[in-house]
């Protein structure tokens, strides 16, 4: 009974209800919406956003932010494309790509913990640098033609379900377990809630910060792999603006930019909400300019409801 009460009052549950309501609306408006094909399509569309948003959740839980994610995804795609064209075997390309993600995270962690730079500024800088390098390496051109073993991660299927969705759900499961049930996960919340108290309680706060930015970097590398495989192409302008969608999804899912509050489940609901809105508006032939406006309005509403709720409970 206690569990159901906390469940009912949780931010995640309220957003979930919102997701159901919007879903019901689109199902009513369009016969195509509720088809299995379309629902799987939404999940597929959301999987890349979702992988990035999972990394973003880790960072936001520590009251940080990672603006570089979109550019890092694009850079990861272009680097892999060039390596593949240079004859590097697929398994090694994927490994190097993951190491690249780790390196980006370490660079962020170092700048934030050792040099003391603000996460917003550091990642704003890497956002520009990574996008710049993407253009330099690709010469501004789209790179095509990869071995099928590589494209499998973006466009392959295992049974009826696409590999991208499986990667997304597995990754989400591991992330949720880590945050919910491990000491490290608890420490991430602690650092976001009160970093001084965390250090005095014996938490190695610098390691924790390194860790969350590394998770974000790895998430970008995985997203880069899936995205490039799905498109069958590495585009220098890929994933532009993804950082804002990822942040929006995390916040819609009930996390606080002040840190210490949020869950992976919430983030996934947030990602799905954005995915459903995008998909539904396409089905209803909403003009693209209005799509952007409506998406913004829904994000505003979702966060507003949560803020009002918190305001009430704090008095």
């Amino acid at each position, binding site marked *: 009974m*206690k569990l159901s009460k906390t469940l009912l009052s949780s931010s995640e549950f309220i957003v979930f209800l919102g997701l159901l309501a919007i879903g019901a609306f689109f199902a009513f408006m369009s016969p195509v919406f509720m088809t299995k094909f379309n629902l799987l399509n939404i999940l597929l569309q959301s999987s890349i956003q979702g992988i990035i948003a999972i990394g973003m959740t880790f960072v936001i839980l520590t009251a940080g932010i990672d603006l570089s994610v979109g550019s890092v995804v694009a850079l990861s795609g272009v680097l892999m494309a060039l390596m593949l064209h240079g004859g590097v075997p697929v398994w090694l390309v994927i490994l190097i790509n993951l190491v690249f993600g780790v390196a980006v995270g370490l660079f962020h962690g170092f700048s934030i913990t050792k040099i003391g730079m603000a996460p917003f500024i550091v990642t704003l800088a890497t956002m520009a640098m990574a996008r710049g390098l993407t253009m330099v390496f690709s010469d501004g051109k789209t790179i095509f033609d990869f071995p099928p073993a590589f494209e499998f991660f973006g466009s392959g299927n295992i049974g009826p379900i696409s590999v991208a969705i499986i990667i997304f759900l597995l990754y989400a499961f591991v992330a949720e377990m880590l945050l919910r*049930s*491990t*000491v*490290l996960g*608890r*420490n991430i*919340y*602690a650092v976001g*809630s*009160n970093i*001084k*108290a*965390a*250090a*005095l*309680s*014996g*938490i*190695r706060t610098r390691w924790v910060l390194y860790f969350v930015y590394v998770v974000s970097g790895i998430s970008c590398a995985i997203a880069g792999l899936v995205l490039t495989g799905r498109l069958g192409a590495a585009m220098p302008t890929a994933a532009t603006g993804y950082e804002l969608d990822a942040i929006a999804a995390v916040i819609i899912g009930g996390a606080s930019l002040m840190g*210490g*509050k949020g869950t992976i489940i919430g983030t996934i609901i947030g990602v799905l909400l954005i995915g459903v809105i995008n998909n539904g508006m396409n089905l209803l032939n909403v003009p693209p300019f209005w799509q952007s406006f409506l998406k913004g309005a829904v994000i505003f509403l979702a966060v507003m409801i949560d803020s009002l709720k918190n305001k009430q409970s704090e008095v």
Partner: protein
Amino acid sequence: METMNPKAILETRNLTKVFPGVIALDDVSLSLNAGEVLGLVGENGAGKSTLMKLLSGVYAPTRGEIYFSGRKAQFRNPKDALDAGISIVYQELNLIPHLSVAENVFINRLPRRGAFVDWAKLYRDTRSILSDSGMDGIDPKAIVADLPIGVKQSVEIAKALSYKAKVLLLDEPTSSLTGPEIENLFSVIRRLREMGIGIIYVSHHLDEIFQVTQRVHVLRDGKTVVVVPTVEADEEFLVSKMVGRDIKNIYYKGQHTPQEVVLQAEGLSDNLLKNVSFKLRKSEVVGVYGLLGSGRTELLKAMVGARPLKKGTVKVRGKVAKLRHPLDAIKTGIVYSSEDRKGENLFFGNPIWKNITYLAIQVGRFTKNGFTLPRQERRAAADFAAKLNVKAPSIDVDVYNLSGGNQQKVCLAKALIEDPEIVLLDEPTRGIDVGAKLEIYRLIADLAAEGRAVVFVSSELPEVIGCADRVYTMSEGRITAELTGDEITEENVLKYCLQVDAAGEATT
């Protein structure tokens, strides 16, 4: 009670405030004379804040009346009370840091000349308020952010007076002030008395009540317990009235005999600490007394590796311990509990149980292969919360919603659950009510009786003297004296903490 006191500038009759489910203030009749300081004391939840809010127009009374200057007053909002001449200075200062003293004093009412601020008049008026109340030293043009906290408090008082206040309500005015700043505040208060201003002084610090008030009004559970002239009361009397039972021994040394040295610090130095050496014994309570900025907090933090040391060694049980991070200290059996509950100790937004176990899970308690074992955690946290008498409906309550005393108990539970040998407590009784303080004195004695070494840092002299077996005094980053047995007197402690040790000075 029924007749009007002709001298009273402010009087309440049968003042009652009911909130849904609680009677916060029950039939309280209070009177304040012009030129008088009335102490208002009581535990948290006794109704002090409610009373202050009724007097300052924040709340409207459910029943009862307020008479101001002999006439019945009805304050619909704080502005009504201000206009009538009742000003309040809250514990949390409400100044705008980037503005000048004068702008803060006259905020919302800056004198104008046409469309522009009349700066000359602003500074003139501010200067005259400051000098009337004995605060000549403050420059009206100074930026508030640059001022020490004690001066900020004075600015807040000047702001209150600028409304031509006849009654001043001071809510815990010394909570963040150092010794000399408190003295300064008292001299301002004396000056205001001479001007005929009536002051209600709310404080947990009974020594201040004795120093500055003429009468004391004690509240408990929303009701008046007693009103006495200050000269007729002593500490035990007031505490008994506040907690509602007889208190024989407020401070409690307990039964323990200090044994072998377990911790020895030698020549600790950093940018504040200067060559600090001291030792701690098993089954001993060591008091550390010093003013804010004397280095007491920095010393404790340096000992657990939370501050980098330039020089010096810490030996634990005779062996040099390399403590570079609080985690190293925790593994060695040393815990530090910060004075700053909100800023450095608790995780607001997290339930009681998680707060209690945060430290323990860092060293592998309640965990298996890096995974937490919440069921064990919750059971242990519940046991410890019960042992320390944390009052809360359940261990799932957010610590943010607890009273100061209960928050402090959660802090102590967090520090003690790993069963440390050496416990460094930084101001564990700051800003909590008397009942909780008594429990903490008792706990400190129990810790020593169990064979632990306890360092007890406090700004309240009677506590240190009452609880410690041995006292170190600190000033300007040095230990200025070590006092034991009969040497531990108020006079001695104050003497050493206010002056830099002559020998120490000579050697540098």
